[in-house]
């Protein structure tokens, strides 16, 4: 049987690996988006997607590692959630603006 202290150490190790993996996923996402030619419009679209992707990854992290030690992750998650909602809203707004007929 593992002692509670060992358990905490193991969870901490896993959480560190999670952070490394999240960083790697974000770098890979950026690479995937920019490895071929993008027009200016496509570039704006992709920039807007970065925040929601980070929110999903951070959300998974936050709901897995609960406890006092992970309070900071919760704050980061809620900030990123707010930012991604903002960015999606702004994108929708511009798409709607572009669709409007100007007479």
């Amino acid at each position, binding site marked *: 049987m593992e002692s509670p202290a060992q358990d905490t150490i193991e969870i901490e190790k*896993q959480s560190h690996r999670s952070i490394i993996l999240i960083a*790697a*996923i974000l770098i*890979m996402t950026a*690479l*995937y988006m920019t490895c*071929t*030619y993008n027009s200016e419009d496509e570039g704006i679209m992709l920039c807007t997607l970065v925040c929601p992707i980070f929110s999903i990854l951070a959300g998974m992290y936050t709901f897995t590692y609960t406890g006092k030690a992970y309070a900071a992750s919760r704050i980061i998650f809620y900030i990123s959630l707010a930012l991604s909602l903002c960015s999606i809203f702004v994108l929708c707004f511009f798409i709607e603006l572009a669709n409007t007929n100007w007479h």
Partner: protein
Amino acid sequence: MYQLNSINKIYAAILLLLILATSVKIWKYKTWKRYYYTASFSSPASYPVHVNNGQLILEDGDIAYVGYSTVNDGNNFGWGYGDSNDPTRKERLPVKLVVQYASFRDQSFYSDTIPLPVDAIKKAFSTVNAKGISTDLYQKPSVNRLDFVIGIANKGNIIVWLRGENFEETLLKHKIAPHEPSGDETYYETRLTKSQYLKRVFWIDSAKLEDFKAGLDKDASYIDTPSQFKIRLKQKQ
């Protein structure tokens, strides 16, 4: 070996998928087989044409449009000079040319899909860095490009040139037989008859019409006439 808990397994799977997707994307895009180039039409001033459709079919099945504003607007800068639009992105090389146009002097329509000499094009592009035309890109370092110019000579003759800074290569000469237009070949804002279409797209002033009636350049064979570019090149040497 690192032990991963379930959430890290999910992260790792996402990462692997991303790496796979990125490799597939790079492999499909093939940057190392892409080049900067432009393509445009040219026609002699004494033989006005109106291009309805001009496209290059590329190696990967994509389409690049051939610039025809100079020809259709009647701004002929000299036989063999095309538009001068700067390319914005690298493209795969063309394998076929699609051309559809109407000639004013013949009052007839021409349409064809012409295979291009792929090996000759590849060979020319292998020296693009040394012989290409320097082009400034928006907010990027300048690159070297080549220009395809498609000359529409009289009597349904087509000539394709490939140009760099100081060279011109004739890729092919091709003759298209005139045919009766069908379907959208006579579409200009709406579907028109052949004579309506020709009247609509050509704006020829009366002085020029007189010249044409008098038989301007009647016996000219533009397919065999060197381009203005070539003539200037010879003068420089």
